[in-house]
């Protein structure tokens, strides 16, 4: 980071006082309601598959697939970004948001072609989540394995 001069630091303090605060309470309420609703829908599918005879860990697979489908479908139809505007983290954090983060760049960069556009840019938002998600899962897995060896 660049080192700021005294004048720049003073301006930063001054401008901070002028900046509107994000409406935290409203944002959190919306995130809770929308995020919660998405999870309830997921739970309905999970319970349905368990009732049909799958074990809970088996039922997680088809439930995720259905929720990813919904996320991708609502992105393609232009609904998910409008939902995200109000819901914020409530629609970003669930797996539907993950689908949105992959489908939206794929759509956006289609005009640059299927190789350098769709395929290359598909993970431009979700890529860091995958990299650090898989890396931390591997490290935790190793620690878990080593602890069990003791």
């Amino acid at each position, binding site marked *: 980071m660049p080192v700021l001069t005294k004048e720049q630091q003073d301006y930063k303090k001054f401008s901070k006082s002028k*900046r509107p605060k994000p*409406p935290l309470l409203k944002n959190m309420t919306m995130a809770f309601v929308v995020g919660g609703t998405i999870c309830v829908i997921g739970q309905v599918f999970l319970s349905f598959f368990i009732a049909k005879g799958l074990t809970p860990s088996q039922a997680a697979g088809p439930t995720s697939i259905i929720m990813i489908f919904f996320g991708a479908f609502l992105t393609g139809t232009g609904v998910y970004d409008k939902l995200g505007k109000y819901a914020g983290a409530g629609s970003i954090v669930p797996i539907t948001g993950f689908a*949105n983060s992959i489908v939206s760049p794929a759509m956006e960069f289609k005009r640059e072609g299927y190789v350098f556009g769709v395929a290359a840019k598909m993970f431009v938002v979700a890529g860091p989540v995958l990299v650090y998600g898989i890396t931390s899962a591997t490290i935790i897995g190793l620690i878990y394995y080593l602890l069990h060896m003791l």
Partner: protein
Amino acid sequence: MKKLGRQTVQFEKAPSIIGTATIVGPKEGQGRFKDYYDLILKDSIYQERSWEKAETKILKESVEMAIKNSKVPTAKIDYFIAGDLLNQIISAGFAARELGLPFLGIYGACSTIAQGAIIGAMIIDGDFGENVVAAVSSHFCTAERQFRFPLELGNQRKPTSQWTVTGAGAMVLSAKAHNPRITRATVGKVIDMGEADPNDMGTAMAPAAVDTIVRHFEDTGKTPDDYDLILTGDLGSIGKDIAEELLRQKGYDISNKYTDCGVLIFYPEQDVHAGASGCACAAVVTCGYVYKEMIRGKYNRVLLVATGALLSTTSSQQGETIPCIAHAIALENL
């Protein structure tokens, strides 16, 4: 010597603006200046295959329309000066490919229209040409994908963020005696007050606008009383507040005649957070509302201070602060 003080020029011939044209997108067309635009698009893709092609098309058509409105034959246009926000200013370059005019491509981010007008006025005052077109464009969808996120991504915008104007503005400058005229111009310095948030450009750009306004008054000996309207480019609501306060601290109270194009373009209920931005922001207000109201005589002396943030996604990701610029042009009915 046509130079005044450190950064200002006084044009001897005072080049006139003899024709303008503005084209805007549908959202802008629902905004405050809807009656002042020459063309409001029904959709922002404008029958093209990509947003970039659409932006090139509106820039090209705004230039053709401005030339037509000026009644100068296209063969008599000596230079076409244009810029936009995209990498390698492709909208300007590609529009120039279609227009077949001698082309100077420029970049000053959202201050580009003032930069183009200054260069154009200097060309005319220096007798290097009779007629010059200065034009710029910006497009919400091309800017979002270059600077921010895919359109369909469900992210939340910050309260400080601004909405890139979809549109193009073009002005034909001429040596002919006509009103309004460009009488003086102040070329700004790059000012960086250490702001680094690309979602808060108004805060970053306000000190640049203030520096140029103060410099303009000091160089010319003019005061705010010499203008009917002082207009910054795209500081938005937060930047405008800051600029007003900084100017007051420096002894200039301009609050009764000062406003900002970024604050005005959209109505508050259009949900654009801190206001509008983009090259077209200052351009469509100047070439539309200001130009037409100067011809009608509502305003006779206007100081336009177009502002620009000279950052890129690369510089932001590398943690750089935002260098900002503001150029001022005085438009007057003589």
